[in-house]
Structures are given as structure tokens and as C-alpha cells.
């Protein structure tokens, strides 16, 4: 199977997930070539903010669509949302387009109340 296959820009998030679920797929995020969605951890607060930054940083510079899955987020705080905001901005500055494949209500509420929802395209 050709490993160099690139997903077209119009790829649905569902298909993306299928690709990443492939057992032969290299570890997630090890290469920015495969456009697997970035899955946010259930708990992202100040203690995890540095790890979150490390998770997101390799995706800066990617062009095309960046898909983030926020459906598993249960606990989130200002520090984490600030990291997300910085990521979205930096990624956009490099020409990327941000899309969310899933948004938990915890994430939605926090982003909304901190006035950040619109800035990270979380506005419903």
C-alpha cells in the first residue's frame, strides 16, 4: 500500500479518523504529512498546558486543513484555551485552515465565556 498517499483537502473527518486508525500508520504526529485530526486529551488544564503546546507545535507550518477533535475534553481552563488560541493563530498565519471535528460542551462553554470561541472558530 502506498504510504505516501496524501488526503485530498476535501477529506471528511470520518475518513481521516479511519486512516489514523490503520495499524500500519506511523505514530500520530510523528509526521505532518498525514492529516490525522489532533485529538485533545480529556483533561487540559494548566498542568497539562506544556504538554498541549508540545502536542500542537509540530503542526505549525502545515498548510491546508488542520482538524482538531475536541469531543473528549472534559476539563479545560484558561491556560489551555490560551495555548489553543496561540496555536490557531500561529497555524493560520502559516496558511492553515482550522476545523473542528468534535467539540465537547465543556470546551464550548469555556471558550464562549472567555470570549475566545469566535477566535478559534468554535463559534456555533
Amino acid at each position: 500500500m502506498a504510504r505516501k498517499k496524501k488526503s485530498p483537502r476535501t477529506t471528511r473527518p470520518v475518513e481521516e479518523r479511519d486512516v489514523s486508525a490503520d495499524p500500519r500508520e506511523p505514530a500520530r504526529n510523528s509526521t505532518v504529512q498525514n492529516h490525522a485530526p489532533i485529538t485533545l486529551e480529556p483533561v487540559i488544564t494548566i498542568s497539562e498546558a506544556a504538554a498541549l503546546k508540545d502536542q500542537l507545535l509540530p503542526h505549525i507550518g502545515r498548510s491546508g486543513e488542520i482538524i482538531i477533535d475536541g469531543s473528549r475534553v472534559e476539563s479545560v481552563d484558561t491556560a489551555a484555551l490560551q495555548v489553543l488560541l496561540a496555536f490557531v493563530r500561529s497555524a493560520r498565519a502559516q496558511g492553515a485552515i482550522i476545523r473542528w471535528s468534535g467539540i465537547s460542551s465543556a470546551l464550548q462553554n469555556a471558550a464562549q465565556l472567555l470570549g475566545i470561541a469566535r477566535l478559534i472558530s468554535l463559534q456555533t
Partner: protein
Amino acid sequence: MAVDLDLSQFHGLFFEESAEGLTAMESGLLNLRTDAPDLEIINMVFRAAHSIKGGAGTFGFNEVAHFTHILETLLDEMRDRKRGVTQELIDLLLESVDGLRYMLDSSKNGRATDMQRMRALEQRLTTLPREAHNEGEARWQIKFTPRRHLLKTGNDPYRIFRELQSTGGLTVKVNAQRLPNLAELDPEEIHLDWELYKKAGETTEASIRELFAWVEGDCDLQVALLGERRHMVERRKGREPEGGEAEAETAGKGHEQASIRINIEKIDGLINLVGELVITQSILNRIASDHAVDSRAEKLKWVVGLLERNTSELQDHAMRIRMLPIDFTFNRLPRLVRDLSRSLGKQVELKISGNSTEVDKTVLEKISDPLVHLIRNAVDHGIEKPEDRLAADKPAQGLIEISAHQEGGNIIIKISDDGAGLNPERILAKARERGLVAEHEELTPMEVQNLIFQPGFSTASEVSDISGRGVGMDVVRRNITDLGGHIELMSVPGKGSIFNIKLPLTLAILDGQLIRIGREVFIVPLLNIVESIQPRKAHALEVTGQNEVYRFRDQYIPVIRLYQCFTIPTEIRELPQGLLVVVEAGEQRAALFVDEVLGQQQVVIKSLEANYQQVAGLSGATILGDGTVAMIIDVPGLIHMLRAKKAVRAVV
């Protein structure tokens, strides 16, 4: 028979009134808030525009009338709440005020107006989208700027906001301008700040502050009640059931006082005559007191005493006609600070107080430029950028305060900022580079600060177009000394700077010290005098050539022998025989060598230029009680002449 009325004689009046109208519009617009527009202000701006339009139409300035009409339409829509007040709209209206000022200035000076510029402005005015009016309901505005370390204290703005929201709604505006790229972001530091809005009925200031109590030292918090006047009045009425409303009414109306416009020459004529009267009165006083004691002389003295009181009151009142509130100068400053801080990306609050303090019109006109310069400097060099301020543990918004108050015959103007203060090392390095200070010369901190008043000195590493080039603090100080005042500076690095300016209230009279040289009497302005001393031979020192210096408190100051300056015959030529009057102008001191020091007296200044011709070393003349003429010594001028090492030979 048709009367051909020449309207051009009224043009001056129209321009003057229009200029006042523009100033009123400008200050109104600056006070207009987008979140809670005050109808009263919009009305005031509308009225000002309307009367400019009326005048322009009458006097045939059709372009002005046409442009003002467009403005008026816009203001009318704002007044009727058909158009919401947005920042964009306010900015455009301010630009239009500038445009109008430009058109009026061109007409006044007979220059052609660049109509293209006006058309472009007109275009923008007519095509500006109409924003819906947001019904100004009373609400709390909370400005919350966390310090960087806030998150590390275990506090989370999200939690606080959630608490605030729990009692109703909450509108949140985040400002993420300071947020760095992800790569540069320390994920545990916070770089965001917020503006929150909450309906006034849902909470109180105390409970808002309580929610933020945990983060009190770790953030910058401002809570303000926004809303329409109506709401405020109603709230007051609720608290004070008796007379609350009536009070609000009178406060609005009672301020307008009737006034008439008078040509300044007429006033100066009057003041001059009153001055003559004061002199005549003092001659009369002297004659009366010389009389032998008898019943008629007693009566004469009593009448002369009465006359004296009336004359001095008359003089006081006459002087006051020429006095204007310093607000005429201060009201230029808010716009200046607003525009400047915006273009520099800084946040600055300007606080003005004492703006009703009155000062002579001439002083007012001459102090305007130095004040503008000092305020520009404070915004440009004093106040730091918001990120630097936060890093230095200061609120993001800088504060500049300007105040005025009267102290005896002087007005004191104080300008302070809470900015970076002066950097002594940089000033000293610069001064050495410019050769103003020798390589190994040691200076006191005060002396270092005062270096900024040296000609050609500019500390900004790069000259911005804000604080100008070349025109520096030396010009500011010279303008102030020329008015017979002086300026002092106090600056603490990291904390800010304070400028203190002392000026005479009027240039028509001054408090003088009478001195005698030979048979001549001179007057030295009291404002310039530091001290009068009995010279000691041991302290006198002759330096090479003709320069003579005297040691006055660890400082060698030049001696000016007035009898030499003005070629007056006198017996007293040795220092110990006479007296030294130590004077200062700016930072320069000198000792005037005189025969004798007489009394002090308030004198009416007569211009030498107007009555004779300008004379170096003298600033004017006056007539004393015995009818003799006495010259007033120009201390800054004398010191300047000494420094310039010109031969001081005045023609008397």
C-alpha cells in the same frame, strides 16, 4: 434706498466664534463614549456645528456651509438615535472637525482650499454605514488585565467569569493582542486581558470586586458604571427623594453666563489708563503723607487712603478682564494625548485639574506650545508600551496628570506622568558624547536631570516625528523664562517624572525689589531673586580677563557690576562697600552688584518698545511714587549677555 452692508468687517468675529465652536465640538466628541453615548454631548456638538453653518452661510463661505450641513445631518441622526455611536464614526467626525478648521484657516488667511481633500472626507461621511443604535442601558464595565503570573497562583479567570455569569448574563470581550506565537508562548503565563459587561441591575460593584478579591494583587481591575444620564438621575432620585431632580436641573443650566466680545486693544487701553491712575495715586499718597499734621491734612490722608483702596480694586478688576481660564490651553490636550497614544500603541489616561484657574491672555498664548511639548514628551518618552508596563508591574494604562493653581501672583502648572522616568546613565552618556559634560566631571543627580534643558539635547535614541527634532526642552525652558517664570524637574527612574512650572499671572504688573546704583533706582523682579547678601572679600575671585566670580554656597557665580553695565557714576566700586543681589533665570545664577537695596513694591510695567525703544538688559520701565522713572532689569537678558560675552553697553 438699499443699504449696502459690508459684512467683511464681521469676518474676524465669525472666524473667532467658529474656532471656539470647533473646540467645543472636538472636546464633546472626545468625551463621547460608544458604550453609553450622552445625548447632552451630541446635542452640544450639533448646536456648535449648526451655528458654524449659520455663520458660514451668512458670510458667504459656501463650501464651509455645505460641509457643515453634511455633518449636521449625521449628528441629527445620532441625536434621533437613528444612528449608533461607533468609534469609527467618532474618529471620522474628529477628522471632519480638522477639515473644517483647515477650511476656515484657509479662508481666514486668503489661501485656496484643497477641495479634493474635503471631497474625500465628504465621500466618507456620506457613505459611512449606519450602525444601529444600541439602547444605552446602565451596565457595569469591568476591565480585567491579569499580570503574567496570575495562572501560577492557582487562579483561573474562567472560574471568576463563571461566577459572574451565574447571576445573569455576561458579555465578554477578549484582547489577545499581546499573545505571542505558540512557539514563544510560555503556557503557564497569561497574555490576555478582558473587558466584561454586565447589566447594572444584576449585581453591585462590591460584589464584583469581591469576586476578584482573590486575584487582587495579581491583576489590574477597573470597574465602572456605564449608562445613560437618565439612569443616573433616576438612581439619584431614588436615593434623595427631596430635590434630587431639581438639583440635576440647575447643574445643567446655571453655568451659562452672559458675555460680550471686546477688542483686546480697548481693554489694553483701559488697563494702561488704570496703571497711570495707580501711579498718580501713589504720588498723591506721598504728597499727603509729607504734609504737616493739621485737621485738613488728616482729612486729605483719609480721602487718599480711600482712593488708594478703590484704585487697587479697580486695577485688580481691570487686570481680570484680560484673564482667561487656563482651560483654553488645556482643552487642546485630550485630543493630542488620544491621537498620540493611538499612533504609538500606548494606553494613556489624561487627568486635568484646576482648568478654571485664570491667567493673562498673553501668558496663556505663550505657554500653550511649551505645554503641548511637555505632554507630547510625556506620552512619547515617558509612558512605556503596555507590555513593558505590565512587565514592570504597573497597570497597562499610563497616567498623565496636569494641574494648575494660583499661588499669590503666580500660577503653578504641574505635569506628572507615571512612566519610565529619566534614565540618568543615558543622559550622562549623551551629554558626554555631545561634549556638554567633560569626561571625568561628576554631576549630582539633579544636575544630570537638568542636562535635558541644554540646547540641542535629545535623549530619544531615534528621533520620532512625535516629539519633533531640534526643538527640545531648551526651547520650552526659554519660553518659560522669557515670561519671567521658571521650570523645575523631578524624575525617578521607573516611577515617572514631574515638571513644575511657575509663571506670573500677568505681564502688566510685577512684584519688584527696588535697588539703587549711584543716583538711579532700578527694579529687579522678585521672582528672579534668590537672596541678597553682604559680600565678603574672601569670597570674591578674579578669573582671567574680566570675569569676576563670587563664591555663593559652594558655587561660583559670575558678578555683574550694574554700574558698569549701564555706565552710572557711583562711589561704590569695591564689593564690601555695596551689596550683592543673587538672581537666577532658568538654571543660571548671577550676582548683581548694587549700592543699596531699598524696599519692595508692586509696579506697573511700561513697555520700553512702545514708549522708546528696546534696550538690552532692561525689560521695561515704571514710574515710582515720587514721579521718577525706574528701569526694570531683565535678569534672563543680562545673564544671557554675560554668557554670550558680548560687550554690555546699553544706551540709556
